[in-house]
């Protein structure tokens, strides 16, 4: 196990370097960011040159990358164009997005798995058909439509919630945005659980457990669910990263100042430091989440061994 973890951690290094380099190159081919800094008029050449020097943009890209990565290892993610250190932006943005992700994941786990178990056990019944239809609708409607409709109905028409999230972004305020963010994944979790449960219901070990006379509740939670959850855990695990990075749309609709907001601003203003910094952290989140998923397999199914 220990060896496995170390090997996996070592594998992360090339992935990490490759991903950050790609992002670095992509942001850099978009043109000169200083040109956009002065608004609709041109920066005067002297100030532009001075700014380029300050942000290190006058050097070749490979050199910029090396300096950047060198700084990252000492915890220095550079400075955004508005003069704020990127780490400061991160310290305000990440807590908000993490809270939003937690809300979304909780929805996925609680509602998604519950619905999946219910429908999986009652295949073909009206409940099953109803939920299946429901998930189909959720999957086919784009997130921004769901978001805007909920915002309009709950926020403006009925006044149950505030249409936008305040800068504190407490858990309470994030319930509706979290649900919107989770909606599509939630539908997938439901469907995955349902299929998995329905398949395992007919397996030998379940029949044995029932034959032994174990209570139904115990059969479902200990035998059936535990084995059926492996694909679901994989999905939810990888979804953590996807939710954090993909919150741009939801964050925009509900005016949440999280990672999505900072990334959007960074891309719009072509701020290399902000974009690369945030993406670097997101890559790390992806990698760690994947590692955790793999380790969780052993907990769920002892037959899975790590060499």
């Amino acid at each position, binding site marked *: 196990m220990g060896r496995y973890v170390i090997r996996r951690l070592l594998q992360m290094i090339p992935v990490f370097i490759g991903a950050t380099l790609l992002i670095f190159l992509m942001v850099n081919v978009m*043109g000169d960011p200083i040109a956009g800094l002065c608004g*609709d008029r041109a920066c005067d050449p002297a*100030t532009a040159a001075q700014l380029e020097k300050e942000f290190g943009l006058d050097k070749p890209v490979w050199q910029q990358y090396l300096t950047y990565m060198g700084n990252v290892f000492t915890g220095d993610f550079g400075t955004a*164009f*508005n003069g704020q250190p990127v780490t400061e932006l991160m310290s305000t943005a990440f807590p908000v997005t993490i809270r939003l992700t937690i809300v979304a994941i909780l929805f996925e786990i609680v509602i998604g798995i519950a619905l999946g178990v219910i429908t999986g056990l009652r295949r073909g019944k009206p409940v099953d058909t109803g939920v299946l239809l429901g998930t189909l609708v959720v999957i086919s409607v784009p997130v921004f439509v769901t978001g805007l409709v909920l*915002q309009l109905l709950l926020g403006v028409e009925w006044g149950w919630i505030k249409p*936008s999230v305040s800068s504190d972004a407490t858990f309470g305020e994030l319930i509706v945005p979290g649900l919107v963010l989770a909606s599509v994944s939630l539908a997938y979790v439901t469907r995955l659980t349902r299929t998995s449960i329905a398949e395992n219901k007919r397996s030998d070990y379940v029949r044995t457990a029932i034959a032994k006379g174990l209570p139904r509740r115990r059969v479902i939670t200990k035998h059936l669910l535990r084995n059926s959850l492996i694909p679901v855990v994989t999905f939810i695990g990888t979804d953590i990263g996807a939710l954090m990075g993909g919150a741009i749309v939801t964050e*925009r609709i509900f005016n949440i100042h999280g990672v999505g907001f900072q990334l959007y601003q960074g891309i719009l203003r*072509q701020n290399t430091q902000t974009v690369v910094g945030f993406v670097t952290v997101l890559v790390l989140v992806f990698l760690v989440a994947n590692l955790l998923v793999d380790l969780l397999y052993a907990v769920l199914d002892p037959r899975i061994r790590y060499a």
Partner: protein
Amino acid sequence: MRGATHAKWAACAAAVALAATACGGGDSDSGGDGTGVVSSSWGDPQNPLEPANTNEVQGGKVLDMIFRGLKRYNAKTGAAEDMLAEKVESTDSQNFTITIKDGWKFSNGEAVTAQSFVDAWNYGASLKNNQKNAYFYGYIDGYDKTHPEKGTQSADTLSGLKVTGTNTFTVKLNQKFSTFPDTLGYAAYSPLPKAFFDDHAAWLKKPVGNGPYTVDSYTKGSQMSLRKWDGYSGEDKAQNGGVDLKVYTDNNTAYTDLLAGNLDLVDDVPASQLKNVQSDLGDRYINTPAGIIQTLAFPFYDKNWDKAGMEKVRQGLSMAINREQITDTIFQKTRTPASDWTSPVLGEEGGFKEGLCGDACEYNASEAKKLIEEGGGLPGGQIKISYNADTGSHKEWVDAVCNSINNALGNDKACVGNPVGTFADFRDQITSDKMSGPFRAGWQMDYPLIQNFLQPLYYTNASSNDGKWTNADFDKLVDEANAETDQAKAVKLFQQAEEVLRDDMGAIPLWYQNGSAGYSDKVSDVALNQFSVPVYNEITVN
């Protein structure tokens, strides 16, 4: 009982700290007693908030609240009126003596003196401070030493500025510029306290100025709370208790918040809501002219666009654009078809002249086709109008303009839009002279002067002459106008220069832009000034 009172106090303090809402019995219903707080939409300023470094509206809003300069533009007429200036005198339009009023203070208690201005201007003009509005000091003598075009600066201070007393200083310009005093209302000319230079980082976290408001708290990227400053020395004291500026990523969300009663003021109604805004807000919707004009510029560095006869093609293109129809259908009348190169906010005395463009700006399909053919046709048989696709809804109108041109010429391939991914890339292509056809150009005035609509945009090698249009007659007339001390005569000369621009069609004027805003029934006395910024200090909370 005592305990209960304490608890109430604590709760009030917490509520004030968190949401800055009024607290306690009776207070919450302040009934226009000047203590209510206005919440308003805001965008994240792109640059650090310093007077000489702020070049966009969002940062400008804050400066307008926490600073007062020598002059201030009347929100209704646009006239430059004395604010801190006691008098600005000159006999030759080149040497000015400025006397400031006594008794003004910064909100940290420091007195505003002549030195406060001179220090601020020197700071702004110095190359090593990277101030994006440094060119504003370009008329002051010695600017080329503190801000050379290349290399390092040879002086830290402008030689043209001299403090002659606690409240007086002199300004020597490097050329005659009769309307210079009228430019002094611009935020870049604000005074700065010593605290700015002593601890710059701390100042940026919480800016200190001499305006009617002070910054109470500032969370970058999400909110700035400004509160009325009781020690303010000016006459235009705040009529409300403060303003909370909330950052919105999307103006649609801000608008939704306004409808839900969650926000008091939106100063940018999203294009997609313009259809509903009348029924949603009724007379709480403001749509007033602002000092902004949109034009199509041409790449005069490209030989195809600079050869003889091309002025006919440019005039033809201008005539092929149905401005009336586009402003009605796409902009829901929040734009007015342009018939000169300035803006209606200048007023007739200030130099706005309706119809100066003449027939060239009137839609006339057959004449347009004839002119373009006479001029030798479109270069390469097709034009591409470049625009940035990331912000604003430029795609819609560029497509409409192209449609209009195609219809007029009876050729559906004559004009196509050429979207550029980001604003930065768009600006990059413009400044590196890479445009091969007409491109979108917008101009928001710095100060309400006809000079500001012409010189920076069309004077040879001027800072914002993106198309590199050049004309000796135009330059000569602008120089003469700047040297002319009689305001009316100066305006006439500027208009003559504008006629030169018209005859060569150096840029096609499209439309004047309006400022649009909406507000809730909780506030009144809301108005926009000519810069399309709300006049915050006059808003009252009902």
